[in-house]
């Protein structure tokens, strides 16, 4: 999967790119409007991660240009703009999704996955991690073939873990993923604890192994012990 990252801040572009490479994406970086346009003309990308404020132009104009020329790539806007700006002004019109800075990298990853799934809904509908399988279509999760009775939030949480397996997920990142704009509560991290606890219990109750480990004071990680 090929991704074009349009971001003028070199350090941030660097971090995002190295993260995406770790997740087995092919990631190219364009720092300016012109560079991005050139790359988009020459190559095909599955997803374009687009910053709005670019030194030589506005990312929204690039988006309009893409749509006008019928470029098929999905566009995910990454911007320092407030979420309210998007809602009030329809700033993200024509884009597949938007995410506001600062965002947790796993969240970016989950968003890219979601966009890709929307593009080709019938491909690769089941994700697995060891003996856990999750059907993205029906949202059914199974442990060793046994159906888990999960709430919507727990399903969401499990998918987030599987998408970011082997990675540290901070409590804040999980909270942001589960509740999104609904809560600016910093203490919602306590609720994350509850949800993770319930999820782990349901997996072990179904006879599965508890692959989720707690990193004290930080967050959680889904990984298989060696």
């Amino acid at each position, binding site marked *: 999967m090929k991704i074009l990252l349009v971001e003028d*801040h070199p*350090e*941030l572009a660097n*971090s*995002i790119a*190295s*993260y995406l490479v*770790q997740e087995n994406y092919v990631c190219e970086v364009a720092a300016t409007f012109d560079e991005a346009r050139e790359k988009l003309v020459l190559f095909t990308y599955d997803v374009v991660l687009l910053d709005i*404020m670019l030194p030589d132009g506005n990312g929204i104009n690039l988006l309009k240009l893409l749509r006008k020329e019928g470029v098929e790539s999905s566009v995910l806007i990454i911007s*320092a*703009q*407030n979420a*309210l*700006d998007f*809602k*009030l002004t329809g700033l993200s019109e024509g884009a597949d999704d938007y995410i*506001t*800075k*600062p*965002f*947790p*990298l*796993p969240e970016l990853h989950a968003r890219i996955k979601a966009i890709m799934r929307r593009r080709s809904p019938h491909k690769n509908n089941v994700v697995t991690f060891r003996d856990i399988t999750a059907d993205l279509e029906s949202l059914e999760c199974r442990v060793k073939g046994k159906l888990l009775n999960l*709430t919507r*939030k727990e399903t969401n949480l499990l998918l987030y873990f599987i998408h970011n397996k082997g*990675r*540290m997920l*901070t409590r*804040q990142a999980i909270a942001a993923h589960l*509740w999104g*704009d*609904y*809560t*600016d*509560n*910093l*203490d*919602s991290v*306590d*609720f994350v604890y*509850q*949800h993770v606890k319930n999820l782990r219990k349901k997996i072990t109750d179904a006879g599965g192994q508890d692959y989720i480990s707690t*990193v*004290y*004071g*930080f967050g959680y990680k889904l990984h298989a012990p060696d």
Partner: protein
Amino acid sequence: MKLNYRYTIAYAVITFFVLSLGFAIVYAALSRSVTQATIGRLEHLNDVVASQLRGGSDSLRSFSRAAVRIQPLPAALGRPRTVAVRQEWDPALQARVAVVRLTTYPAVGGRVYAITSRASVVEPTDVYLTGLVLVFAWTFVFLLALVVILSELLSWRILRPFNATLRGIQQFQLSQKTPIDLPTSRTAEFEELNSFLVRMTARAQRDYQGLQEFSENASHELQTPIASIKAKIELLMDSDALAEKQLRLLAAMHDELERLAKINQALTLLAKLEHYEALPADLTDFSQLVPATEAAFADLAEMKGLRTTQQVVPGVRVPFDAALAQLLLNNLFSNAIRHNLPSGEIRVRLSATELLLANTGHAPTVPVEELFGRFKKGNAALDSIGIGLAIVKRIGELYGHRVGYEYAEGWHSVRVIFALPVG
């Protein structure tokens, strides 16, 4: 009190004093001139009598002698004349009246005589006085009526540019894009006032826009470095070479950074709301949005063991932008959950006129109205940034809804009283 009323009252008081003074002067002058006129007549009479004496005929039977007494004086005393005014009983009038006596000392044939003539004077008492008072009272009334009518007309005409300026100031908003609109005036003072206002508001607008740009730019410029640092910490976290001690340090940094980002976002949001131009024509269906928001927060409430009761009247449509209404409700619900007691209660009541969200909780430690301020927290121990109510209030204000907060008997209630929809 209006300016022209004050003028009218001041003018009425001045007129009253001036007229009273005028009345006193007229009265004094009148009474003096009556006496003077009498004295003049008596002088004439004395002259007549003196010339009769000179003619050698002291015609005692003459009419002219009726009120004149003549006394020869022993020595030639060169006194010009004496006047005496005294109250005396006048048998002819059967009343006490002022009597004027004039004595002249003419020399007739080498002898000096004292000729004293007398006359009663009817002074302008009583009847005169009443007549005078009436004249002055009517003058006062007419003047006053004239002043009232004219001041109304004149002030309407003269103060018209001033009133227009007042209206202009009232309609002026710092956040508007156009300069203040003030009509020109031919009056120098008003013109000066207007030009001063135009200059001052232009400067205020410039400063305001500068501040606005600054806050927008600052927060925008800050978000990217924060995002960059956060991404780096996340990458660092995933490397295997970290001991637990280092991980804890990283975690602390990450939490602080998260907090910084939240504060920054909240401030940008408030700055955004500060100059957001609300369209009161947008209606949002609260009867649908309130239960939906409650449902979205249900799991959070459940985990804290809170019991929620809802009373929602159907079909309540309120002037609000949908995104802002959602933001307002999110803040209210998350506050109600965050500041609740374990196993507490939340009550939601939506009627056609207001939304009430009440929750159990500890008594606030600061006066409740202060909680609408930024970074004011009722409970310092909680890990919140204390800007939620400021956002709620601001969103309410945008659409003219009143937001109230009160605490009574263990219940915190936030009330949003809806302004009537336009049209």
